[in-house]
């Protein structure tokens, strides 16, 4: 049994929050560069500005976006790892320190309906735990802004729904989001599981590396087809038209009830801030 000090979890989460807010993930950088080369006129110019924004953010330590989001953390805990303390408290403290010391915006309000009073340290984060093989702790930190999250959707289809119905739902979600979710997007889709499960699958899908191919050939084909159809919407960078409305479509799937076909579409913006670290 390997022992892990929760202090190290705090320090790591703090650094991950700060890095994610300032450094465009490498796969996003590559994808935006590639898209810029394929665009013309104002769309090409805007994508080049995205690259310029990333340069300034990293060099001058000004966050990529003023909405430094809700911190979403996936923690995969190895079965042979003993965390000597309260891991939830350790992660929360990491977020608190990261948002304070990194000069990130505090966007969390205490009560959704009544006071809506800012918690002043961006806590609590949203944490998802899972167990895994081995003796490591794998942390994924995503900074999820309101613009992309607010336009994400869930639909509980009946099993009689066709592939086309599901594609139309994804297309409608992207079309209604328009420029509000800061395209070009990463489109994460969760299919199966249940009501909350499909949303989680869609969120996880956003962490996949741009350029990776789904292991299941049928889902890989669906991802390719949906990406083509989404780009045919011609919303484009900043919603001003162009070939690039999405940079990638990622689908995660899971078994579900015989009466259900849950589908969730979670949108990620053109910075899709996420970072992974193994302790």
């Amino acid at each position: 049994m390997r022992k892990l000090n929760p202090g190290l979890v705090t320090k790591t989460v703090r650094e991950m929050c700060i890095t994610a807010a300032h450094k465009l993930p490498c796969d996003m950088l590559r994808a935006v560069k590639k898209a810029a080369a394929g665009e013309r006129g104002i769309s090409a110019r805007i994508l080049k500005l995205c690259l310029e924004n990333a340069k300034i953010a990293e060099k001058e330590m000004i966050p990529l976006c003023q909405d430094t989001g809700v911190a979403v953390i996936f923690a995969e805990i190895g079965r042979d790892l003993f965390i000597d303390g309260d891991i939830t408290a350790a992660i929360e403290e990491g977020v608190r320190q990261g948002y304070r010391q990194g000069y990130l915006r505090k966007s969390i309000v205490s009560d959704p309906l009544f006071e809506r009073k800012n918690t002043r340290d961006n806590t609590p984060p949203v944490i998802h735990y899972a167990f895994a093989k081995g003796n490591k702790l794998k942390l994924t930190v995503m900074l999820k802004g309101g613009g992309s999250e607010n336009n994400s959707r869930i639909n509980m289809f009946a099993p009689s729904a066709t592939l086309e119905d599901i594609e139309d739902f994804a297309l409608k979600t992207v079309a209604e989001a328009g420029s509000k979710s800061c395209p070009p997007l990463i489109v994460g889709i969760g299919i199966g599981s249940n009501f909350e499960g499909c949303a989680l699958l869609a969120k996880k899908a956003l962490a996949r590396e741009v350029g990776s191919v789904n292991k299941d050939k049928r889902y890989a084909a669906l991802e390719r087809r949906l990406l083509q159809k989404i780009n045919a919407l011609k919303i484009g960078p900043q919603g001003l038209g162009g070939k690039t409305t999405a940079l990638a479509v990622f689908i995660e799937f899971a078994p579900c009830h015989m009466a259900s076909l849950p589908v969730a579409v979670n949108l990620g913006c053109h910075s899709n801030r996420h970072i992974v670290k193994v302790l």
Partner: protein
Amino acid sequence: MFKLKTPLTLRDLKPLKHGDEVLLSGTIYAMRDAAHKRMLSEKKLPLDLRGQIIYYMGPTPARPGKVSGSCGPTTSARMDKYTPQIIEKTGIISIIGKGARAGQVRAAMKGKVVYFIAYSGLGALIAKCIRKSVMVCYPDLGAEAVYKLEVENLPLIVAQGLDGKGEIK
């Protein structure tokens, strides 16, 4: 490309048409959801916004020695519920934000307000255009307080001119 400098009048804004690119310099006021809501609930406005430009934005805190934190536009549609009343109550002549507006807001802006979009998700790039940033009211709202900003060559695109024309996705 148009170069504009505040103070501006409706006459200065009249030539602007959907799709025009503009570099704006001068004073603008950053305010978003909570400040809109509070302003509409007050009998007397805490500041005079007649003839001014408002920017839907809530910045990250500035690092020591820096003028501004990251400061890109937020989604305009969330302000749709307040905008027609805000136009009437404050007398603003221009709005800067992100994304499409509701039909009744587009109608309320016609002839009174030019709607610009700023580059969304490019808060670090926009921060380079900020020369001064001062919190002017509602400090308790934190990132949602009202900030008076001095900007230089802030890049904008006209989404809807005074003619009321121009739809964006």
